């Protein structure tokens, strides 16, 4: 499966559009459990555990997007957009959406 955030896929032409597909997840982490994050909240800087939390969540949202596209029989998802919303203290909703398409490779002449 080819995922891009552009309208076209280089080297392929879009045969049919199969419609909108999306994947979403809500994740949270208890701040008291992570001592380094609590220390980083005093002196500032990167909260490494939250960076990895967010990228794991984003990978899962994209995985759900892919499985939805697979069910439609798509070869790829184009024009993917991502969204994040902090829905409460320490919890974030992550959304990925795009258009599932059927692709055919361009034959070089």
């Amino acid at each position, binding site marked *: 499966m080819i995922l891009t*955030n552009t309208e076209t896929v280089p080297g392929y032409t879009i045969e049919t559009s199969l419609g909108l597909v999306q994947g979403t997840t809500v994740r949270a982490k208890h701040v008291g459990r992570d001592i380094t994050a609590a220390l980083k909240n005093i002196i500032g800087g990167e909260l490494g555990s939250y960076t990895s939390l967010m990228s794991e969540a984003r990978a899962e949202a994209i995985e759900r997007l892919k499985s939805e596209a697979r069910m439609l029989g798509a070869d790829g998802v184009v024009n993917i957009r991502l969204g994040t919303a902090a829905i409460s203290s320490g919890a974030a909703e992550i959304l990925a959406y795009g258009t599932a398409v059927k692709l055919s490779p361009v034959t070089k002449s």
Partner: protein
Amino acid sequence: MARSNYPGWMSWIADWYVPQDVPGFVIFFGQSILFGLSIWALALWLVKRHEKNLAEREAKYRHIHLTHMAPPLEAASAHLMLASVVLSHSLSRTFLANLKKLFGGRIKIYEDTINRGRREVMMRLAEEAHQKGIDAVYNIRFLTTGMRFGQRGGLSFEMLAYGTAVRLPARTGFSDENAVTTSAYGETIEPTRA
């Protein structure tokens, strides 16, 4: 005890260097200011170190083409690439930003953090591209979210950059002076870097 009206840890520290006849409130305010100043200095040093590190990496990954435009049609492969970072503020900077919020206007502390985070995610994209042998990342989009971790935590920002990573058919494309590629929208992309 004359020094019972302020937190215990403060008196433990004060006992090392402050005479016994100094009143409690002097120690309380004095040590609070010292504590705040030391956190401010430490945080400032960390920010400066990060900026120096970013400048080094920006010079190192100059050859990776990071752009907002659509990829050329003749690219050999394309896939989605993400990079993100969560940055928090120090207690002193959170305090100063909250103070500024009372008056409104430009909050430079937040601007600086967001800009630093955006440079950081750009460099993470470039690093990943460099490791995977990718020539360019096209159609980069940015996203910023503010979030609070915990009840008393300051405002943290998550910066995200995502784009389409592309391998160009001729890896020398961007170093060749005569190479001109065409984007999906038909405009020509002149090589910008030697």
